[in-house]
């Protein structure tokens, strides 16, 4: 179902209304940033991916199909930007270096410490396909249908990836001594 408020805001953006732009960025900045952070495991990279996603989305506003939710569209771009960012990072890092920041830093103080780190490390150990479905399901609260729309894959594939990814994460956490 199309979100009529978002649709109206997109239409106003197409006419140059910056108030509508501010409303859309305000609405989706935090969820997009959080999804990018969970995919990338690094706040700076997540901020870069978020910015790039919004720039790309609004540069290509004429390509937005109003039959779909703006939410799905911006998430799709953000996921792609995050994965592109991962590829760039990988090329710059030796293979034995992890993707997650070594020092959590002050930004991480609010997170629930050890368990949160273990969860993020578990996520980073997954392949991009698996990580993305876990992030969309458990951190962005997307349904199978929404994930299918965002990633442009069949729901059957969403389920298959999600179930396998959860099993792998569970096994890794248990192996690391995390009680589940």
């Amino acid at each position, binding site marked *: 179902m199309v979100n009529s408020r978002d649709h109206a805001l997109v239409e106003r953006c197409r006419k*140059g209304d*910056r108030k509508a*732009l501010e409303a859309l960025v305000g609405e989706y900045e935090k969820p997009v940033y959080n999804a990018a952070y969970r995919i990338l495991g690094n706040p700076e990279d997540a901020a870069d991916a*978020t910015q790039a996603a*919004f720039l790309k989305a609004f*540069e290509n506003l004429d390509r937005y199909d109003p039959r779909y939710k703006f939410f799905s569209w911006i998430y799709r771009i953000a996921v792609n930007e995050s994965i592109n960012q991962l590829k760039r990072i990988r*090329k710059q890092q030796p293979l034995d270096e992890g993707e997650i920041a070594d020092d959590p830093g002050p*930004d991480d103080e609010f997170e629930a410490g050890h368990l949160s780190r273990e969860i993020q490390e578990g996520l980073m150990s997954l392949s991009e396909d698996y990580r993305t479905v876990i992030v969309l399901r458990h951190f962005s609260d997307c349904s199978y249908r929404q994930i299918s729309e965002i990633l442009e894959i069949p729901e059957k594939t969403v389920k298959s990836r999600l179930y396998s990814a959860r099993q792998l994460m*569970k096994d890794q956490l248990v192996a690391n001594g995390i009680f589940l």
Partner: protein
Amino acid sequence: MVNERTVYLINAGIDGELGPQERAELDTLLDASAEARMLQAELRRLATVMESLPEREPPAGLAERILDRIRLPGPSRHAAAHSPRFSLGGLFASFQPAQAGLAFAAGLLVTVGFYETALRDGGSDDLSNMVGTMVANSTPTVGELQGTLTIAQPGLSGTVFTSEVGDFVVMNFNLDLAQRSEILIDVAAAGMSFGGVARASADDNSIDERYEVSGGKLRVVNQGRQQFQVFLRHAGGVSAGVIDIEVNQPDGSVFRGSLPIGGSGA
């Protein structure tokens, strides 16, 4: 061993995607298998833990930076906030070398030509707010050497040298950044206008091609080994004679240096 059907139903149940019939089937399977009940408990706990982690706040000013850089079509009540989008790639594709009228090597002709086109268009004179993409240029532009800066400090090494080509000052960066670092070039303070950025190789996909110009400074954020050239032109006012470079690393260390930029300015 929990069979495939049970695993499917447990997972779908955790996601709230079971119909009444499937729910009843799962309940029966769980009643019959302690192993299945344990798997369900573990997966449910994993889901609960992930969903209970607090959302992170985006960095301060991120929304403003995004809004500053987005241009919308049509009329706007905030026209002054628009950021000129400056894509050298498009200019490169359309440029005809013969228009430049400069007797340099072919690569240089092309390079200087599209920057001249860009400057004529006026977009690159606005140093207040701009984003762009580095253009690939496998034939690095050379010219009369003006100065060299050698950098050797923890996590950051390499050279930057300036050369002069016609009206242009070319800054040649050859750096190795151990961490993702911010490179700032104070274009406005040097009395220069901005022409663009070219990366050394069309095949090198390892560096982030985006750059920003804001508050008179060019900003490139990257990591690893990289070669790129920054093209500047004397803005017509009094040139400062030097251009300042700053490299900020994530550990808080800052490198600052200056390079001479010649005397072509008025």
